[in-house]
């Protein structure tokens, strides 16, 4: 009579010759889902596995897509480091210097601005916030020609603000500080009780001291999040350095890799794969270490750069 009580179960079990228990169904469900997971993971890893395998393969033949190279060696990586025409290590260095300095400056000015927007009530505050959002609607790529021309004009008089200068790039990246990230940090600062600031102010602290000694330490999680995302964004940026940098020794790794690939790929595919691995590795490692900040940031609306 039990089946009588549960019509749903009767209906489902009836046509089947071998009625499955709940547990069996659960395991079949798992099996199907794991199978799908495997297929998806293969899809996700195709390029990764290929580039890793090819970078250790020195047989010089591209035509045989073997998964595990027959004579694995580090020759490609050696060639990469010693390459005279394509200074990969230099490019990596450039990328790191540019991305690190820009990230520090950008996160700092983002936070300072967010602090002002969160803690001060001043004339024009709302208007300013709207203006910041409005200005950031304009996709950066669209103004690349205008930027190029401005940089050219400035460079006529101040050479370190001109074309082919890392300082120019860093300044432009720092100008990305007033982006949507300001609102993220502001939102976070809003959630830190103002009473903390006020008691310090009563004790005679300046706003600068409150910012340095109370706000910054408390805002660390959100700062790490935007710092990581900013760094990833700048490190991986392509258009700006492609347009603004000219001489080979000044290039960033992304532009260098692109130029190498389009110029010399057929002869040097092995070196390219080694370069791709080297270029991606630091970001991958950083990502694995700081995963929780990145995912937390993404779910709260952060963006790269």
């Amino acid at each position, binding site marked *: 009579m039990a089946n009588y009580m549960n019509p749903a179960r009767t209906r489902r079990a009836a046509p089947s010759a071998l009625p499955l228990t709940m547990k069996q169904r659960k395991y079949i469900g798992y099996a199907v889902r794991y199978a799908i997971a495997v297929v998806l993971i293969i899809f996700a890893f195709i390029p990764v596995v290929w580039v890793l395998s090819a970078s250790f393969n020195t047989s010089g033949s591209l035509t045989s897509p073997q998964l595990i190279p027959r004579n694995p060696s580090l020759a490609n990586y050696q060639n990469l480091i010693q390459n005279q025409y394509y200074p990969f290590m230099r490019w990596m260095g450039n990328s790191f210097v540019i991305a690190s300095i820009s990230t520090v400056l950008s996160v700092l000015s983002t936070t300072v601005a967010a602090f002002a927007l969160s803690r001060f009530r001043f004339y024009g505050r709302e208007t300013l916030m709207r203006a910041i959002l409005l200005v950031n609607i304009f996709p950066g790529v669209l103004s690349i020609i205008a930027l190029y021309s*401005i940089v050219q004009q400035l460079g006529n008089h101040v050479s370190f603000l001109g074309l082919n200068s890392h300082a120019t790039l860093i300044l432009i990246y720092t*100008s990305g*500080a007033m982006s949507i990230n300001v609102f993220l940090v502001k939102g976070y600062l809003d959630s830190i009780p103002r009473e903390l600031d006020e008691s310090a102010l009563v*004790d005679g602290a300046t706003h600068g001291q409150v910012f340095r000694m109370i706000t910054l330490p408390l805002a660390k999680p959100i700062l790490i999040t935007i710092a990581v995302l900013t760094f990833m964004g700048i490190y991986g940026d392509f258009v700006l350095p492609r347009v603004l940098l000219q001489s080979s020794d000044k290039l960033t790794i992304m532009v260098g890799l692109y130029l190498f690939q389009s110029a010399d790929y057929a002869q040097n595919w092995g070196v390219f794969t080694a370069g791709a691995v080297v270029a991606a590795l630091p970001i991958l490692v950083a990502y694995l270490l700081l995963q929780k900040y990145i995912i937390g940031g993404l779910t709260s609306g952060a963006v790269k750069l």
Partner: protein
Amino acid sequence: MTAIANKRFIPTGGIPARWLIAAVVDAALLWLIAHLIDDGNYPLALILLVLVGIVTVSFGFERLRAYRWLSVGLCMTVLFVLYPILYTFYLSTTNNGQGHILTKQQAIDFLERAQYVPETGQTYAWTAYESEDGSIRLWLTAADGSTYVTRIGEETQPGVAGEDGVGELDDAGTPVTIDGATRLERRSLLTRLDALNDLSFGLPPNAIQITSMNAAATTVQRYRYDAARDVMLDHQTGIEYKPVTGTFVAETGEELRPGFFVEIGARNFERFLASSALRGPLATIITWNFVYAILSVLFSFALGLFIAVLFDNLPGKRIIRMLLIIPYPIPALVSILIWRNLLNPDFGALVKLTQDLFGSSPRWLTDPTATRIAIIMINVWLSYPYFYIVSSGALQAIPSEMLDAASVDGANVFQKFRSITLPLLLMIVSPVLVASFAFNFNNFNLIYIFNSGNPPIAGSPIPAGHTDILISFVYRLGFDNGLADYGLAAAISIVLFAFVAVITWVQFRYTRVFEDKS
């Protein structure tokens, strides 16, 4: 509170230091402004003046101290974000581009620097000296035997042994060294004559140029601009050049290079919207631009959501998630280049694999449809992890009571998903979807890096490709193969901007970034 009652909290005054910073920054900016005004570059000078205003006001007035905190960010945004936008608007109304890059003043300055050797000019025999830093000076001997020393950017001086850096004279009467620099061998001169010809020694109006292996001559300015009549006069030939849409043109039609840019109103927009030759390629580009952005978002979101739902409560979810997110942290450029290699028709590993399995493979980089499919597939690969993360987050926000209640009412998994999870989730992620559409609509990197917008559209008057989107077409106009049609490129940028602005305005209505949480 003991830590806070620390004596470091004693206010430090700091008014003079503050003013000093403002003064230094202002001085540097004003110096730059003066130079830009010299160039005739008034817009950039004006925007720098705005920066001076921001710095002075925010540092000068205690009442505006909040702006002091914002000043660095504001200055940067004004100079590198706001000004480029305004400048793009301005560019779109000019003919700025190949041959019309300079301002009128810069073009005039450039032309006025040109020199020529008049028939009646003084000529000299010369000897060149090169110092270790590569700078060149000349020893000149005139027909009457008088000698001179001339350097770049300095007045020519009479040449006397032992004076003014001139070393001892040799038997032929030429110094062995000048300023410690040694004589250039006649042999090495041959190969360097072209470079030496370009140098101008001494100061105008008595500038001296090398004219041949044996002679240097006093040169005079060739062109002079008559501001009152707005004409450029050529002293060598006596011809007058009048400015016509950014070029000095003689009556015979002969033109002077370089030209300069002038305002041409809405002509760029007319070209974009109404040029019959461009219409075909532009229609292709715009259609593909929409298809590409919509399908990319749709498929990436669908896959991301599918994964999020499917693995939501699966044992081992953490590992699966870590593995599936792998495309996200890899710099997009690296991934795109790798995909490009995998799909290379000559030696791509995936192409070989499909050929081995099925006997043939789509021509990924040369066939328009196949290339488009490849681009969307790669974009899905690149962006599903983002949607996976976002959807997972959104799933946590759906109250489980609602799902439980539905279960009690006899709803099955699919019914619950369709009527509860999906609608709620769409509400949460719709701003992200809109933003992602706007981003992909201008996703230059993927298009440019994967195949530079190729394969090309045959017969297009301006080179364009089947996978070009508007923004990559703009890049072509600006930076490819010396097209450099900045005016048209800026006009298209403005159209794109308007489009994205509308999308974002819609998006803002659903988000509440302005709220002050507390």
